[in-house]
Protein backbone atom coordinates (compact mmCIF):
# COMPACT_ATOMS: atom_id res chain seq x y z
CA UNK A 1 0.00 0.00 0.00
CA UNK A 2 2.87 2.32 0.86
CA UNK A 3 4.41 1.66 -2.59
CA UNK A 4 1.23 2.83 -4.34
CA UNK A 5 0.95 5.87 -2.08
CA UNK A 6 4.54 6.83 -2.80
CA UNK A 7 4.12 6.40 -6.54
CA UNK A 8 0.99 8.53 -6.56
CA UNK A 9 2.57 11.32 -4.54
CA UNK A 10 5.75 11.35 -6.64
CA UNK A 11 3.78 11.41 -9.84
CA UNK A 12 1.93 14.50 -8.54
CA UNK A 13 5.19 16.17 -7.62
CA UNK A 14 6.95 15.19 -10.87
CA UNK A 15 4.19 16.58 -13.03
CA UNK A 16 3.01 20.17 -13.12
CA UNK A 17 -0.41 19.20 -11.70
CA UNK A 18 0.58 19.82 -8.09
CA UNK A 19 2.37 23.12 -8.64
CA UNK A 20 -0.23 24.64 -10.95
CA UNK A 21 -3.29 23.75 -8.86
CA UNK A 22 -1.68 24.73 -5.55
CA UNK A 23 -0.20 27.87 -7.13
CA UNK A 24 -3.56 28.99 -8.46
CA UNK A 25 -5.25 28.27 -5.12
CA UNK A 26 -2.71 30.42 -3.29
CA UNK A 27 -2.84 33.15 -5.93
CA UNK A 28 -6.63 33.45 -5.89
CA UNK A 29 -6.95 33.26 -2.11
CA UNK A 30 -4.12 35.78 -1.71
CA UNK A 31 -5.70 38.22 -4.16
CA UNK A 32 -9.14 37.98 -2.60
CA UNK A 33 -7.86 38.25 0.94
CA UNK A 34 -5.33 41.03 0.65
CA UNK A 35 -5.77 42.84 -2.63
CA UNK A 36 -9.33 43.22 -3.92
CA UNK A 37 -10.99 45.88 -1.73
CA UNK A 38 -14.42 44.19 -1.42
CA UNK A 39 -13.03 41.15 0.33
CA UNK A 40 -9.74 42.50 1.65
CA UNK A 41 -8.90 41.96 5.32
CA UNK A 42 -6.95 45.21 5.31
CA UNK A 43 -10.05 47.22 4.38
CA UNK A 44 -12.26 45.15 6.67
CA UNK A 45 -10.48 46.46 9.71
CA UNK A 46 -10.80 43.48 12.03
CA UNK A 47 -7.91 41.11 12.69
CA UNK A 48 -9.63 37.85 11.85
CA UNK A 49 -9.42 35.12 9.20
CA UNK A 50 -13.14 34.45 8.81
CA UNK A 51 -13.05 35.71 5.22
CA UNK A 52 -10.48 33.13 4.24
CA UNK A 53 -12.38 30.25 5.81
CA UNK A 54 -15.67 31.16 4.16
CA UNK A 55 -13.92 31.52 0.81
CA UNK A 56 -11.71 28.41 0.90
CA UNK A 57 -14.50 25.79 0.48
CA UNK A 58 -15.45 27.38 -2.84
CA UNK A 59 -11.84 27.26 -4.05
CA UNK A 60 -11.57 23.64 -2.87
CA UNK A 61 -14.59 22.77 -5.02
CA UNK A 62 -12.35 23.33 -8.04
CA UNK A 63 -8.90 22.64 -6.63
CA UNK A 64 -9.63 19.16 -5.26
CA UNK A 65 -11.44 17.75 -8.32
CA UNK A 66 -8.47 18.98 -10.38
CA UNK A 67 -6.10 17.01 -8.15
CA UNK A 68 -8.16 13.81 -7.97
CA UNK A 69 -9.60 13.65 -11.50
CA UNK A 70 -6.70 11.66 -12.90
CA UNK A 71 -6.30 9.09 -10.13
CA UNK A 72 -8.40 6.26 -11.61
CA UNK A 73 -9.53 7.81 -14.91
CA UNK A 74 -6.01 8.05 -16.30
CA UNK A 75 -5.02 4.56 -15.16
CA UNK A 76 -8.07 3.12 -16.88
CA UNK A 77 -7.44 5.05 -20.10
CA UNK A 78 -3.73 4.15 -20.25
CA UNK A 79 -4.37 0.51 -19.31
CA UNK A 80 -2.00 0.75 -16.32
CA UNK A 81 -5.02 -0.05 -14.17
CA UNK A 82 -4.55 -3.69 -15.21
CA UNK A 83 -0.95 -3.50 -14.04
CA UNK A 84 -2.07 -2.12 -10.69
CA UNK A 85 -4.93 -4.56 -10.05
CA UNK A 86 -2.76 -7.61 -10.79
CA UNK A 87 -0.28 -6.67 -8.02
CA UNK A 88 -0.70 -8.66 -4.78
CA UNK A 89 -2.51 -5.76 -3.08
CA UNK A 90 -6.12 -5.54 -1.94
CA UNK A 91 -8.29 -3.14 -3.93
CA UNK A 92 -9.23 -1.15 -0.84
CA UNK A 93 -5.52 -0.58 -0.22
CA UNK A 94 -5.12 0.88 -3.71
CA UNK A 95 -8.10 3.17 -3.13
CA UNK A 96 -6.89 4.32 0.29
CA UNK A 97 -3.36 4.89 -1.05
CA UNK A 98 -4.64 7.11 -3.85
CA UNK A 99 -6.95 8.92 -1.42
CA UNK A 100 -4.14 9.64 1.03
CA UNK A 101 -1.77 10.84 -1.70
CA UNK A 102 -4.36 13.37 -2.88
CA UNK A 103 -5.07 14.40 0.70
CA UNK A 104 -1.38 15.09 1.31
CA UNK A 105 -1.48 17.42 -1.68
CA UNK A 106 -4.47 19.24 -0.16
CA UNK A 107 -2.41 19.61 2.99
CA UNK A 108 0.45 21.07 0.92
CA UNK A 109 -2.01 23.68 -0.37
CA UNK A 110 -3.11 24.57 3.16
CA UNK A 111 0.27 24.89 4.85
CA UNK A 112 1.42 28.09 3.06
CA UNK A 113 -1.78 29.85 4.15
CA UNK A 114 -0.48 29.79 7.73
CA UNK A 115 1.36 32.93 6.60
CA UNK A 116 -2.02 34.70 6.61
CA UNK A 117 -2.48 33.79 10.25
CA UNK A 118 0.96 35.06 11.15
CA UNK A 119 0.48 38.35 9.24
CA UNK A 120 -2.87 39.07 10.79
CA UNK A 121 -1.70 38.30 14.31
CA UNK A 122 1.13 40.82 13.69
CA UNK A 123 -1.34 43.38 12.34
CA UNK A 124 -3.70 43.04 15.28
CA UNK A 125 -3.88 45.74 17.90
CA UNK A 126 -2.34 45.03 20.33
CA UNK A 127 -0.03 42.66 18.42
CA UNK A 128 -1.18 39.03 18.57
CA UNK A 129 -4.79 39.98 19.22
CA UNK A 130 -6.40 37.18 17.20
CA UNK A 131 -8.75 34.40 18.22
CA UNK A 132 -6.31 31.52 17.84
CA UNK A 133 -8.80 28.91 19.01
CA UNK A 134 -11.18 29.79 16.22
CA UNK A 135 -8.33 29.72 13.67
CA UNK A 136 -7.14 26.27 14.79
CA UNK A 137 -10.73 24.99 14.73
CA UNK A 138 -11.25 26.46 11.28
CA UNK A 139 -8.10 24.83 9.94
CA UNK A 140 -9.20 21.46 11.29
CA UNK A 141 -12.62 22.04 9.76
CA UNK A 142 -11.12 23.01 6.41
CA UNK A 143 -8.87 19.96 6.39
CA UNK A 144 -11.82 17.66 7.15
CA UNK A 145 -13.83 19.38 4.43
CA UNK A 146 -10.87 18.80 2.07
CA UNK A 147 -10.83 15.13 3.08
CA UNK A 148 -14.53 14.82 2.29
CA UNK A 149 -14.10 16.54 -1.10
CA UNK A 150 -11.13 14.27 -1.87
CA UNK A 151 -13.23 11.16 -1.29
CA UNK A 152 -15.84 12.57 -3.70
CA UNK A 153 -13.07 13.23 -6.24
CA UNK A 154 -11.64 9.70 -5.99
CA UNK A 155 -15.14 8.27 -6.39
CA UNK A 156 -15.87 10.38 -9.49
CA UNK A 157 -12.55 9.42 -11.03
CA UNK A 158 -13.47 5.73 -10.74
CA UNK A 159 -16.71 6.34 -12.64
CA UNK A 160 -15.19 7.22 -16.00
CA UNK A 161 -12.13 7.00 -18.23
CA UNK A 162 -12.51 10.66 -19.11
CA UNK A 163 -10.74 13.10 -16.79
CA UNK A 164 -12.90 16.07 -17.84
CA UNK A 165 -16.08 14.18 -16.97
CA UNK A 166 -14.53 13.10 -13.67
CA UNK A 167 -13.70 16.75 -12.89
CA UNK A 168 -17.19 18.03 -13.69
CA UNK A 169 -18.94 15.28 -11.75
CA UNK A 170 -16.80 15.74 -8.67
CA UNK A 171 -17.06 19.57 -8.72
CA UNK A 172 -20.86 19.25 -8.96
CA UNK A 173 -21.00 16.64 -6.17
CA UNK A 174 -18.75 18.76 -3.94
CA UNK A 175 -20.94 21.82 -4.47
CA UNK A 176 -24.05 19.84 -3.70
CA UNK A 177 -22.59 18.18 -0.62
CA UNK A 178 -21.47 21.58 0.67
CA UNK A 179 -24.51 23.74 -0.12
CA UNK A 180 -27.19 21.54 -1.66
CA UNK A 181 -28.57 20.22 1.61
CA UNK A 182 -28.88 23.71 3.08
CA UNK A 183 -30.88 24.89 0.09
CA UNK A 184 -32.95 21.70 -0.07
CA UNK A 185 -33.91 22.07 3.59
CA UNK A 186 -35.74 25.26 2.64
CA UNK A 187 -38.11 23.41 0.31
CA UNK A 188 -41.69 23.42 1.57
CA UNK A 189 -41.95 19.65 1.21
CA UNK A 190 -38.97 19.09 3.48
CA UNK A 191 -40.00 21.67 6.09
CA UNK A 192 -40.82 19.05 8.71
CA UNK A 193 -37.36 17.45 8.53
CA UNK A 194 -35.47 20.68 7.90
CA UNK A 195 -32.86 20.05 10.59
CA UNK A 196 -32.13 16.50 9.49
CA UNK A 197 -31.61 17.57 5.88
CA UNK A 198 -29.41 20.46 6.93
CA UNK A 199 -27.32 18.14 9.08
CA UNK A 200 -26.59 15.92 6.08
CA UNK A 201 -24.72 18.77 4.40
CA UNK A 202 -21.06 19.58 4.91
CA UNK A 203 -21.64 23.29 5.57
CA UNK A 204 -23.48 22.69 8.83
CA UNK A 205 -20.61 20.67 10.30
CA UNK A 206 -17.92 22.88 8.81
CA UNK A 207 -19.33 26.04 10.41
CA UNK A 208 -19.80 24.18 13.67
CA UNK A 209 -16.11 23.19 13.83
CA UNK A 210 -15.05 26.68 12.68
CA UNK A 211 -16.45 28.13 15.90
CA UNK A 212 -13.48 26.49 17.59
CA UNK A 213 -15.42 23.71 19.30
CA UNK A 214 -14.44 20.26 18.09
CA UNK A 215 -17.57 18.18 18.57
CA UNK A 216 -17.19 14.39 18.13
CA UNK A 217 -20.45 14.34 16.14
CA UNK A 218 -18.87 16.57 13.50
CA UNK A 219 -15.72 14.46 13.48
CA UNK A 220 -17.75 11.27 13.06
CA UNK A 221 -19.74 12.94 10.28
CA UNK A 222 -16.61 13.76 8.27
CA UNK A 223 -14.98 10.36 8.81
CA UNK A 224 -18.11 8.49 7.78
CA UNK A 225 -18.57 10.82 4.80
CA UNK A 226 -15.16 9.85 3.41
CA UNK A 227 -15.66 6.20 4.32
CA UNK A 228 -18.95 6.06 2.42
CA UNK A 229 -17.47 7.52 -0.76
CA UNK A 230 -14.37 5.29 -0.63
CA UNK A 231 -16.65 2.30 -0.11
CA UNK A 232 -18.72 3.37 -3.14
CA UNK A 233 -15.46 3.62 -5.10
CA UNK A 234 -14.69 0.03 -4.20
CA UNK A 235 -18.15 -1.04 -5.36
CA UNK A 236 -17.69 0.74 -8.70
CA UNK A 237 -14.27 -0.79 -9.30
CA UNK A 238 -15.40 -4.23 -8.16
CA UNK A 239 -18.47 -4.02 -10.39
CA UNK A 240 -16.35 -3.33 -13.46
CA UNK A 241 -14.41 -6.56 -13.06
Amino acid at each position, binding site marked *: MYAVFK*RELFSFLNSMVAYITIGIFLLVSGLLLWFFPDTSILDYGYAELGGFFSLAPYLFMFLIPAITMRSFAEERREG*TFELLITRPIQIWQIIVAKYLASLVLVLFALVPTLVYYYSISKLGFPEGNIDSGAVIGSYIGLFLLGAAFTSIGIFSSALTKNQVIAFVISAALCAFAFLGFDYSSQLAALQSIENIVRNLGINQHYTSISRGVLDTRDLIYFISFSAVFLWLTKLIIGGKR
Partner: protein
Amino acid sequence: MSISVKNLSKHYDKQKAVDAISFEVKPGRILGFLGPNGAGKSTTMRMLTGYLVPTSGEAEISGKSILRDVIEAKKHIGYLPENTPLYADMYVKEFLSFVGQTYKMINLPARIEEVIKMVGLTPEQHKKIGMLSKGYRQRVGLAQAIIHNPEVLILDEPTSGLDPNQLVDIRQLIKTLGAAKTVVISTHIMQEVEAICDDIIIINKGKIVANDSLEGLKKVHQQQSLEDIFRKLTA
Protein backbone atom coordinates in the same frame (compact mmCIF):
# COMPACT_ATOMS: atom_id res chain seq x y z
CA MET B 1 0.67 -28.58 -11.83
CA SER B 2 1.66 -24.94 -12.16
CA ILE B 3 -1.62 -23.87 -13.67
CA SER B 4 -4.81 -25.84 -13.45
CA VAL B 5 -8.05 -24.48 -14.85
CA LYS B 6 -11.45 -26.12 -14.31
CA ASN B 7 -14.62 -25.06 -16.14
CA LEU B 8 -13.61 -21.43 -16.13
CA SER B 9 -16.24 -19.09 -17.63
CA LYS B 10 -16.70 -15.37 -18.12
CA HIS B 11 -20.05 -14.10 -19.34
CA TYR B 12 -20.90 -10.54 -20.34
CA ASP B 13 -24.70 -10.40 -20.21
CA LYS B 14 -25.73 -13.11 -22.69
CA GLN B 15 -22.37 -13.28 -24.45
CA LYS B 16 -20.02 -16.04 -23.34
CA ALA B 17 -16.51 -14.64 -23.73
CA VAL B 18 -15.00 -17.75 -22.15
CA ASP B 19 -17.18 -20.84 -21.96
CA ALA B 20 -16.25 -23.47 -19.36
CA ILE B 21 -12.67 -24.15 -20.41
CA SER B 22 -10.36 -26.57 -18.57
CA PHE B 23 -6.66 -27.18 -19.05
CA GLU B 24 -3.44 -27.77 -17.17
CA VAL B 25 0.12 -26.61 -17.68
CA LYS B 26 3.12 -28.45 -16.29
CA PRO B 27 6.20 -26.70 -14.87
CA GLY B 28 8.98 -25.99 -17.36
CA ARG B 29 6.66 -25.92 -20.38
CA ILE B 30 5.88 -23.03 -22.69
CA LEU B 31 2.24 -22.99 -23.67
CA GLY B 32 1.13 -21.19 -26.82
CA PHE B 33 -2.38 -19.81 -26.38
CA LEU B 34 -3.80 -19.31 -29.88
CA GLY B 35 -7.08 -18.17 -31.31
CA PRO B 36 -8.68 -15.54 -33.52
CA ASN B 37 -9.21 -12.02 -32.18
CA GLY B 38 -12.08 -12.01 -29.72
CA ALA B 39 -11.83 -15.75 -29.03
CA GLY B 40 -11.30 -15.18 -25.31
CA LYS B 41 -7.51 -15.40 -24.98
CA SER B 42 -7.03 -12.11 -23.16
CA THR B 43 -10.15 -12.68 -21.05
CA THR B 44 -8.77 -16.03 -19.87
CA MET B 45 -5.39 -14.51 -19.06
CA ARG B 46 -7.06 -11.64 -17.21
CA MET B 47 -9.00 -14.09 -15.07
CA LEU B 48 -5.87 -16.09 -14.25
CA THR B 49 -4.04 -12.93 -13.19
CA GLY B 50 -6.88 -11.66 -11.01
CA TYR B 51 -7.83 -8.65 -13.14
CA LEU B 52 -11.24 -10.09 -14.01
CA VAL B 53 -13.45 -12.13 -11.72
CA PRO B 54 -14.71 -15.36 -13.35
CA THR B 55 -18.47 -15.85 -13.71
CA SER B 56 -18.04 -19.50 -12.72
CA GLY B 57 -15.38 -22.16 -12.52
CA GLU B 58 -12.07 -22.32 -10.72
CA ALA B 59 -8.37 -22.03 -11.41
CA GLU B 60 -5.22 -22.60 -9.37
CA ILE B 61 -1.80 -21.06 -9.80
CA SER B 62 0.91 -23.12 -8.06
CA GLY B 63 -1.83 -24.65 -5.94
CA LYS B 64 -3.32 -21.29 -4.89
CA SER B 65 -6.93 -20.64 -5.84
CA ILE B 66 -7.54 -17.46 -7.84
CA LEU B 67 -10.88 -17.10 -6.07
CA ARG B 68 -10.16 -17.79 -2.42
CA ASP B 69 -6.45 -17.06 -2.22
CA VAL B 70 -6.09 -14.37 -4.84
CA ILE B 71 -3.33 -12.33 -3.17
CA GLU B 72 -1.15 -15.45 -2.74
CA ALA B 73 -1.86 -16.57 -6.30
CA LYS B 74 -0.85 -13.14 -7.64
CA LYS B 75 2.53 -13.44 -5.92
CA HIS B 76 3.33 -16.49 -8.08
CA ILE B 77 2.42 -14.80 -11.36
CA GLY B 78 4.40 -12.49 -13.59
CA TYR B 79 2.04 -10.80 -16.03
CA LEU B 80 2.60 -8.73 -19.14
CA PRO B 81 -0.78 -7.30 -20.23
CA GLU B 82 -1.70 -6.74 -23.87
CA ASN B 83 -0.18 -3.55 -25.36
CA THR B 84 2.29 -3.32 -22.45
CA PRO B 85 0.73 -0.61 -20.28
CA LEU B 86 3.45 1.19 -18.28
CA TYR B 87 3.68 4.41 -16.26
CA ALA B 88 5.21 6.69 -18.89
CA ASP B 89 6.10 9.37 -16.34
CA MET B 90 8.42 7.09 -14.35
CA TYR B 91 12.07 6.24 -14.87
CA VAL B 92 12.91 2.63 -15.72
CA LYS B 93 14.57 1.88 -12.39
CA GLU B 94 12.00 3.85 -10.42
CA PHE B 95 9.22 1.83 -12.05
CA LEU B 96 10.92 -1.53 -11.42
CA SER B 97 11.51 -0.54 -7.83
CA PHE B 98 7.81 0.36 -7.48
CA VAL B 99 6.83 -3.06 -8.85
CA GLY B 100 9.34 -4.79 -6.58
CA GLN B 101 7.99 -2.94 -3.54
CA THR B 102 4.46 -4.17 -4.22
CA TYR B 103 5.85 -7.70 -3.72
CA LYS B 104 7.64 -6.54 -0.54
CA MET B 105 10.95 -7.82 -1.95
CA ILE B 106 14.14 -7.62 0.02
CA ASN B 107 17.46 -6.75 -1.61
CA LEU B 108 15.60 -4.93 -4.38
CA PRO B 109 18.39 -2.77 -5.91
CA ALA B 110 20.55 -5.83 -6.65
CA ARG B 111 17.60 -7.64 -8.21
CA ILE B 112 16.76 -4.63 -10.39
CA GLU B 113 20.35 -4.57 -11.72
CA GLU B 114 20.14 -8.28 -12.43
CA VAL B 115 16.80 -8.04 -14.25
CA ILE B 116 17.90 -5.03 -16.30
CA LYS B 117 20.92 -7.03 -17.48
CA MET B 118 18.77 -10.09 -18.16
CA VAL B 119 16.33 -8.30 -20.48
CA GLY B 120 19.01 -6.18 -22.15
CA LEU B 121 17.89 -2.80 -20.83
CA THR B 122 21.34 -1.67 -19.72
CA PRO B 123 21.85 1.08 -22.35
CA GLU B 124 18.42 2.63 -21.65
CA GLN B 125 18.19 2.11 -17.90
CA HIS B 126 18.43 5.80 -16.95
CA LYS B 127 15.66 6.97 -19.26
CA LYS B 128 12.03 7.77 -18.63
CA ILE B 129 9.71 5.01 -19.83
CA GLY B 130 7.85 7.48 -22.04
CA MET B 131 11.08 8.15 -23.97
CA LEU B 132 11.73 4.50 -24.84
CA SER B 133 11.12 2.83 -28.21
CA LYS B 134 8.54 0.08 -28.49
CA GLY B 135 11.16 -2.68 -28.26
CA TYR B 136 12.62 -1.32 -25.06
CA ARG B 137 9.18 -0.69 -23.56
CA GLN B 138 8.49 -4.37 -24.19
CA ARG B 139 11.66 -5.23 -22.29
CA VAL B 140 10.57 -3.08 -19.36
CA GLY B 141 7.26 -4.95 -19.48
CA LEU B 142 9.09 -8.27 -19.32
CA ALA B 143 11.40 -6.99 -16.58
CA GLN B 144 8.44 -6.03 -14.33
CA ALA B 145 6.90 -9.46 -14.97
CA ILE B 146 9.99 -11.42 -13.86
CA ILE B 147 11.33 -9.15 -11.13
CA HIS B 148 9.90 -11.21 -8.25
CA ASN B 149 11.05 -14.47 -9.88
CA PRO B 150 7.55 -15.94 -10.27
CA GLU B 151 6.87 -19.58 -11.09
CA VAL B 152 4.30 -18.69 -13.73
CA LEU B 153 4.66 -16.15 -16.52
CA ILE B 154 1.60 -14.98 -18.42
CA LEU B 155 2.47 -12.91 -21.48
CA ASP B 156 -0.31 -11.44 -23.62
CA GLU B 157 1.03 -10.84 -27.15
CA PRO B 158 4.55 -10.02 -25.97
CA THR B 159 5.93 -9.64 -29.50
CA SER B 160 3.29 -7.54 -31.25
CA GLY B 161 4.68 -4.47 -32.96
CA LEU B 162 8.35 -5.40 -32.74
CA ASP B 163 10.83 -5.32 -35.63
CA PRO B 164 12.49 -8.59 -36.76
CA ASN B 165 15.65 -8.03 -34.73
CA GLN B 166 13.72 -7.28 -31.56
CA LEU B 167 11.47 -10.26 -32.26
CA VAL B 168 14.42 -12.65 -32.22
CA ASP B 169 15.80 -11.13 -29.03
CA ILE B 170 12.51 -11.23 -27.12
CA ARG B 171 11.74 -14.78 -28.27
CA GLN B 172 15.16 -15.92 -27.15
CA LEU B 173 14.54 -14.27 -23.80
CA ILE B 174 11.16 -15.97 -23.37
CA LYS B 175 12.69 -19.32 -24.27
CA THR B 176 15.46 -18.85 -21.73
CA LEU B 177 12.97 -17.89 -19.04
CA GLY B 178 10.71 -20.78 -20.03
CA ALA B 179 13.35 -23.37 -19.12
CA ALA B 180 12.83 -22.77 -15.42
CA LYS B 181 9.25 -21.45 -15.34
CA THR B 182 5.80 -22.15 -16.65
CA VAL B 183 5.03 -19.75 -19.46
CA VAL B 184 1.74 -19.02 -21.17
CA ILE B 185 1.98 -16.75 -24.20
CA SER B 186 -0.67 -15.62 -26.63
CA THR B 187 0.29 -14.70 -30.16
CA HIS B 188 -0.92 -14.56 -33.75
CA ILE B 189 2.44 -15.44 -35.28
CA MET B 190 2.62 -19.15 -36.12
CA GLN B 191 6.38 -19.23 -36.74
CA GLU B 192 6.78 -17.93 -33.21
CA VAL B 193 4.72 -20.80 -31.85
CA GLU B 194 6.86 -23.30 -33.75
CA ALA B 195 10.01 -21.59 -32.53
CA ILE B 196 9.32 -21.46 -28.82
CA CYS B 197 6.22 -23.37 -27.68
CA ASP B 198 6.09 -26.91 -26.30
CA ASP B 199 2.32 -27.17 -25.98
CA ILE B 200 -0.53 -25.53 -27.83
CA ILE B 201 -4.08 -24.63 -26.94
CA ILE B 202 -6.32 -23.25 -29.67
CA ILE B 203 -9.42 -21.45 -28.46
CA ASN B 204 -12.34 -20.36 -30.60
CA LYS B 205 -15.51 -18.50 -29.54
CA GLY B 206 -14.70 -19.14 -25.89
CA LYS B 207 -14.17 -22.90 -26.23
CA ILE B 208 -11.00 -24.96 -26.49
CA VAL B 209 -10.81 -26.65 -29.90
CA ALA B 210 -7.33 -28.15 -29.58
CA ASN B 211 -5.09 -28.95 -26.60
CA ASP B 212 -1.96 -30.92 -27.45
CA SER B 213 1.81 -30.76 -27.69
CA LEU B 214 3.21 -29.17 -30.85
CA GLU B 215 4.31 -32.56 -32.26
CA GLY B 216 1.05 -34.21 -31.20
CA LEU B 217 -1.03 -31.60 -32.97
CA LYS B 218 0.97 -32.00 -36.17
CA LYS B 219 0.70 -35.77 -36.02
CA VAL B 220 -3.08 -35.69 -35.63
CA HIS B 221 -3.44 -33.34 -38.55
CA GLN B 222 -0.98 -35.22 -40.80
CA GLN B 223 1.90 -32.77 -40.84
CA GLN B 224 -0.10 -29.86 -42.14
CA SER B 225 1.43 -26.47 -41.36
CA LEU B 226 0.32 -24.88 -38.11
CA GLU B 227 -1.38 -22.13 -40.09
CA ASP B 228 -3.59 -24.64 -41.92
CA ILE B 229 -4.46 -26.39 -38.67
CA PHE B 230 -5.35 -23.04 -37.07
CA ARG B 231 -7.57 -22.09 -40.01
CA LYS B 232 -9.25 -25.49 -40.13
CA LEU B 233 -10.11 -25.39 -36.40
CA THR B 234 -11.22 -21.78 -36.09
CA ALA B 235 -12.80 -20.91 -39.45
